[in-house]
């Protein structure tokens, strides 16, 4: 048998039909659904008189729109249009008989945090969702990617997707990370290296010692941002850490099925002599705590650097960098660590897991956030929130001056009331620093939870190593 990558193996196990030109029908094991990209898909099913083919493999949770302030069960907390969208998901979940975690359920949270937490996401699966950050689930060695609403409807109706196979790209992070450097710094640094289109047309497999050393939470952070590098999916081969994380979760296999699953899961790795269409290697030791300075996730620099000169770029990036600096209100040569911020957002499907909250809490413990700062922690799920409360992290945040919120996407995309105002500058653990992403004319700097926590304390972008 010819050597295969992990992606090849998962792909091959899910092909229902392949045309001569390579157009394939791929079977989908898990379909995750949220309120924003699904109403038109369910409407399409109703119009055509179609059913959901596999309701047992379809899991829905409202996350994008929901308020994260306590007392949100009161519908008056939501604007009319958000309320309609969440109500539509409530109804669609009930009408079509799919698994559902409503806002009132403690298990509710960001769909990409809920899936793994409940054991829906397992190694070797195909996982899709009408959300580009579906790549997160690749941390389990699942082939997971975002789809549009037409494809959501297609999967609901047929449990398959029409796909052509992507190319194989290997991103290897060798060696050990230095103190203060996290999974977020890895994934941002990779995008800084490859650019936001460097992974377009590829599925990325992340590997190397620094990746193996990451916890499952860290691996999810890395895969989550594969899409920001242009790749629809990022993967990490499952190992003992993966199996340990999965075992015992509500929807993970049990008993004999667990044994059978393990037998297959242990074959899920790229063969030594597998073919790679593109390879990127970064030394773990070379990665520093980073922040973004511009309006594209590729605008990444170590916190010790200065704001770059647009003239130092080439092609269309020269005007793009100038536009970014104008938007961000920055000048070339300015030290990144001198940039003052107004708001700190800790949360999102990138960094809203328990390990992220522990890392942030370790930095702020016994300290106060800078006077006048708006700072919030939005746990990725109700269960993360509960665990953080049990571990005393919530108290650390509250004593430091953070708002302690309910679970949801919140200020990552500002579809709920958590938004930046014009010119407001935010240190954010989310995944996109696009113009207007966190609010009209809001300014976003992306970074790790520890770095965001450090910024909350000092009031400026800060090298977390100074506080360690």
């Amino acid at each position: 048998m010819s050597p295969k990558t992990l992606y090849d193996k998962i792909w091959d196990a899910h092909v229902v039909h392949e045309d001569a030109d390579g157009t394939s029908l791929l079977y989908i094991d898990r379909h995750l659904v949220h309120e924003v990209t699904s109403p038109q898909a369910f409407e399409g099913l109703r119009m055509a008189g179609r059913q959901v083919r596999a309701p047992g493999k379809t899991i829905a949770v409202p996350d994008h729109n929901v308020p994260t302030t306590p007392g949100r069960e009161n519908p008056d907390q939501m604007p009319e249009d958000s309320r309609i969208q969440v109500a539509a998901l409530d109804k669609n979940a009930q009408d079509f008989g799919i698994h559902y975690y409503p806002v009132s359920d403690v298990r509710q949270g960001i769909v990409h945090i809920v899936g793994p937490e409940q054991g829906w996401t397992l190694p070797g699966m195909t996982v899709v969702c009408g959300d580009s950050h579906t790549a997160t689930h690749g941390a389990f060695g699942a082939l997971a990617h975002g789809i549009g609403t037409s494809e959501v409807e297609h999967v609901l109706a047929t449990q398959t997707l029409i796909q052509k196979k992507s190319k194989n790209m290997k991103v290897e992070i060798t060696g050990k990370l230095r103190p203060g450097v996290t999974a977020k710094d890895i994934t941002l640094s990779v995008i800084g290296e490859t650019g936001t289109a460097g992974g377009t047309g590829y599925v990325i497999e992340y590997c190397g010692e620094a990746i193996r050393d990451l916890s499952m939470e860290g691996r999810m952070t890395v895969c989550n941002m594969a899409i920001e590098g242009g790749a629809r999916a990022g993967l990490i081969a499952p190992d003992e850490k993966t199996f340990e994380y999965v075992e015992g979760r509500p929807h993970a296999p049990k008993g004999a099925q667990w044994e059978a699953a393990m037998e297959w899961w242990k074959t899920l790795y790229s063969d030594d002599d597998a073919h790679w269409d593109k390879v990127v290697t970064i030394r773990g030791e070379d990665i520093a705590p980073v922040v973004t300075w511009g309006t594209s996730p590729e605008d990444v620099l170590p916190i010790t650097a200065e704001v770059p000169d647009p003239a130092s770029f080439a092609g269309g990036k020269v005007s793009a960098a100038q536009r970014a600096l104008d938007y961000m209100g920055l000048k070339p040569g300015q030290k990144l660590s001198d940039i003052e911020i107004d708001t700190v957002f800790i949360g999102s499907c990138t960094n809203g897991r328990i390990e992220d909250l522990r890392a942030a809490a370790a930095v702020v413990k016994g300290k106060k956030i800078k006077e006048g700062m708006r700072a919030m922690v939005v746990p990725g799920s109700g269960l993360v929130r509960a665990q953080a409360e049990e571990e005393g992290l919530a108290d650390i945040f509250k004593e430091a001056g953070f708002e302690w919120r309910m679970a949801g996407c919140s200020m990552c995309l500002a579809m709920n009331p958590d938004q930046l105002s014009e010119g407001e500058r935010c240190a954010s653990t989310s995944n996109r620093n696009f113009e207007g992403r966190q609010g009209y004319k809001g300014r976003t700097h992306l970074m790790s939870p520890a770095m965001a926590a450090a910024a909350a304390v000092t009031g400026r972008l800060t090298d977390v190593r100074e506080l360690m």
Partner: protein
Amino acid sequence: MEKFEKITGIAAPLPLVNIDTDMIIPKQFLKTIKRSGLGVNLFDEMRYDRQGNEIPDFVLNQPAYREAEILVAGENFGCGSSREHAPWALKDFGIKCVIAPSFADIFYSNCFKNGILPIVLPQEAVDVLMKDAEKGSNARMVVDLEAQTVTSSDGEVFSFDVDSFKKHCLLNGLDDIGLTMEKAGAIDTFEAQAAQARPWV
């Protein structure tokens, strides 16, 4: 879906790289439960000020480009979120074709589901077409999917590649779900086999 017909139309130049789907349709317009009506908010934050007044400099507000059917843009067009509201907004405005040196994967595939043709051409070709688009409403560009060509107003012809299946679906206005439903037997068989091989799924 309507069939994709040959376009002879106005092309609007948008010479920016990394135009993301948040720019194409900002999040506040994702709260709709319909597919239609998003055209008025296409490029909302670049197109209107906070009071809702048009920003005259923005290309689609200029008289020459209000009826544009083609967009010419920089590399990595449509990056970011998977929101299909982006092609819905383009379509609702009247854009049927986007020409760029590269597209983000999810946006690219979403276009085909909505009768929009994304065309990838080399940077040099896009540069020529960008200049052509800047001539305004007197310069009509021709997009012929059948022949896989774009012709500038000066008659310069550029050939492009497109996946044969996607081309077939666009030209004939075919609905993917209907096509896949015809393979229901194969899906049944696969599902039965997978239930044996991986019963835990």
